[in-house]
């Protein structure tokens, strides 16, 4: 019973983290993209437009929820929930500190990616149930993207797993605290993971599911008010979880080089969030500076370039590590 209460408390904290991040990422996106396009972004309400969030949220809540006649009713209503729940659950696996991790299974990395890859199913349900041509095409593209980029994503995540000898996110962080950040020895993996994360979260150079120029608003064309709000909240949450995963796998997570992990204490979450927002800032700069891929180029990039490159690089890294193990510089754990 006490266990359940504690678990519900964790989940409540997860929701709060998700909402605060969602709100902040919306503001940051407007500001960063605005400055990237030589505009100012929001300036009117509050210091530097920061209070713009409040009327935005109120507006989402009080907008009329338009429900078109032709939709598949149950699936249409269910789709925002299918999108929202797994993107919230992914927050459970991020280690924020020594003890500050909600769920810490041995295969934490794989489970987190598994929950994140349920999201395209919800997006597909939304597009299919809308009975709208743009929404359906957007949904099909979203699935096409998910199947093209999940494999390079998982293969790129293999490098930290090999180096640390564990698929548990906390262990990976500890392994980096004792050595170097994995972005240095496996830079190609980090770059490919970054690209695939950008695709998995449907961000602009690869936002096939909602290419505004060609598909109105893609899968979310027929959604309005809070249903739309939940879709977008999940997208920003996915943004944060993917960035936090990059920070954990390649940038040392909640630790700092040269600082004993045991003494990090409350600075752990602060360090992780700063690193995560640094990665999100990189996402946004890519968003602001590159034009969209065509849909056939998009699939070809995944299958013809990223998969052979990541597989080859992973094997090369394995050979190097094996040689290092023979010399006695690496591995040998029981």
């Amino acid at each position, binding site marked *: 019973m006490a266990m359940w209460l504690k678990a519900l408390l964790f989940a409540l904290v997860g929701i709060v983290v998700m909402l605060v991040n969602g709100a902040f990422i919306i503001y940051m996106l407007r500001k960063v993209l605005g400055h990237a396009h030589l505009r100012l972004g929001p300036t009117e309400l509050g210091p530097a437009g920061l209070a713009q969030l409040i009327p935005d949220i109120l507006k989402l809540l009080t907008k009329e*929820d338009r429900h*078109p006649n032709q939709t598949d009713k149950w699936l249409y209503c269910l789709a*925002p929930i299918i999108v*929202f729940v797994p993107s919230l659950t992914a927050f459970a696996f991020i280690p924020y500190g020594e003890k500050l991790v909600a769920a810490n299974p041995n295969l934490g990395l794989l489970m987190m990616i598994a929950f994140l890859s349920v999201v395209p199913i919800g997006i597909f349900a939304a597009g299919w149930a809308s009975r709208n041509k743009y929404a359906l095409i957007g949904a099909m593209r979203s699935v096409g993207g998910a199947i093209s980029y999940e494999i390079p994503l998982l293969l790129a995540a*293999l490098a930290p797993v090999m180096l640390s000898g564990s698929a548990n996110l906390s262990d990976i962080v500890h392994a980096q605290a004792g050595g170097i950040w994995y972005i240095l020895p496996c830079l190609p993996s980090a770059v490919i993971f970054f690209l695939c994360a950008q695709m998995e979260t449907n961000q602009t150079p690869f936002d096939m599911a909602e290419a505004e120029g060609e598909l*109105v608003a893609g899968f979310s064309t027929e959604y309005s008010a809070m249903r739309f709000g*939940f879709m977008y909240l999940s997208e920003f949450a996915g943004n944060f979880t993917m960035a936090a995963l990059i920070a954990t796998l390649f940038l040392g997570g909640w630790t700092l080089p040269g600082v004993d992990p045991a003494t990090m204490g409350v600075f752990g979450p602060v360090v992780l969030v700063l690193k995560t927002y640094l990665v999100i800032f990189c996402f946004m700069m890519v968003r602001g500076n590159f034009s969209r891929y065509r*849909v056939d180029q998009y699939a070809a990039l995944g*299958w*013809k370039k990223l998969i052979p490159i990541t597989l080859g690089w992973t094997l090369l890294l394995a050979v190097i590590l094996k040689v290092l193990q023979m010399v006695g510089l690496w591995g040998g754990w029981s």
Partner: protein
Amino acid sequence: MRDQIIIAAFLILGAAFALFGLSMSWLLSPTRPTHGKGITYESGVDPIGLPWIRFRPGYFIYAILYVVFDIETVFLYPWAVSLGAQGTGWFILIEMVLFVVILLGGLFYAWKEGSLKWH
């Protein structure tokens, strides 16, 4: 057990929160349906035909390849975890190189056959 309970709590509370948000919106927002609001959006004109027709998704072969490679990736994880373990020699590496080379061979075959072309 601990992790399963926490994940279950996230799933339950997430669904509850989504329902709460949707019902808040239902309580706070006005509902004034008109004929125009109920029509499916198609850039301002009346929609022509239904989208639920037979069409070519363009990536059917990708989907099959995806299943093959996804399973391969899942096999690679336990291998990656035990790569540096004590007492593992070159054999573990040669095994995986053979496995990956066979699969890459399959990928290149599909490529040359034209299955990776977007239609």
